[in-house]
């Protein structure tokens, strides 16, 4: 008979009450992929930096586990810690801006209609990834939380530590910038 997986809440309780490191280890195993992937997005694909920040995130989570009030999902709480760790690191190091000479022309033109949809989606995804570099840190974070981590605007606001309206504004601005960068795709779509 398959055993029922222990809930995050139960693992947290064991880690807090009995300082059960195995329970915390299970939490790390469960959430490491999402946290590391989020940080990879935020750092623009810098895997080494993302993993360092992810390690710091779990260390901070462990130290502050007693303050987790279960008002949000554990993953949302982790995203918030991860985002704060990313911000702290970004303040220490200057963000590398996209070179000025890189504009919409540098992105690939959309494949022709006769090209398979899969290839089209794949190419768009690559261009989207590159275009994300034009976004400010806050805009990129809002897109990552809402589209990649599939959070609601309210949850994203909690993670980013700003009002819901600000999240929506970041997303609108981000989309406008992305649209400008990926202009060729938009025109291809209108045809």
């Amino acid at each position, binding site marked *: 008979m398959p055993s029922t997986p222990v809930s995050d809440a139960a693992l947290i309780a064991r880690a807090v009450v009995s300082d059960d*490191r195995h329970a915390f*280890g299970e939490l790390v195993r469960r959430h*490491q992929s999402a946290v590391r992937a989020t940080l990879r997005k935020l750092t623009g694909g810098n895997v080494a930096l993302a993993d360092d920040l992810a*390690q710091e995130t779990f260390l901070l989570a462990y130290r502050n586990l007693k303050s987790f009030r279960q008002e949000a999902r554990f993953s949302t709480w982790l995203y918030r810690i991860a985002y704060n760790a990313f911000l702290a690191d970004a303040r220490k190091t200057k963000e590398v801006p996209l070179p000025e000479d890189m504009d919409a022309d540098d992105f690939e033109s959309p494949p022709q209609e006769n090209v398979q949809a899969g290839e089209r989606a794949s190419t768009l995804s690559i261009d989207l990834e590159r275009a994300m570099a034009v976004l400010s840190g806050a805009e990129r974070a809002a*897109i990552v939380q809402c589209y*990649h981590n599939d959070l609601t605007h309210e949850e994203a606001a909690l993670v980013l530590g700003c009002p819901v309206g600000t999240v929506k504004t970041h997303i609108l601005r981000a989309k406008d910038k992305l649209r400008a960068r*990926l202009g060729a*795709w*938009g025109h291809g779509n209108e045809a």
Partner: protein
Amino acid sequence: MNRQPQSEQDGDWLEQALRTDGRAYRSTYVADDGFSSRVLQVLPRAVTAPAWRKPVLALLWTGAAIAALLAVPSLFDDVFRGAVAMFVGHRLGIGDIAGLLIALGAATWGTLIYALRTD
């Protein structure tokens, strides 16, 4: 001027692209590759105070208080006996003080034994 945001004007291709990218992102699992083990290795060791810390501290404070009383008898006489006299109505004699010290010692040791008991 009724300016609609650009994002609402020209179709959903970007919205769809972001959602598709998000789905693909969520379906991708970042392999652990020893990450969890590394995290567990850097976790700080739990700092738990030994069980005997509190009773020993209580004993030390009691000892220090008694030592202070014995070291400054005139101050003790002036302050402590005067303060007690305010409540009791008369100054304490040496017998009263001895009884008080014995009661204090008994309470301290009783607390210590209770704290160190094995269940």
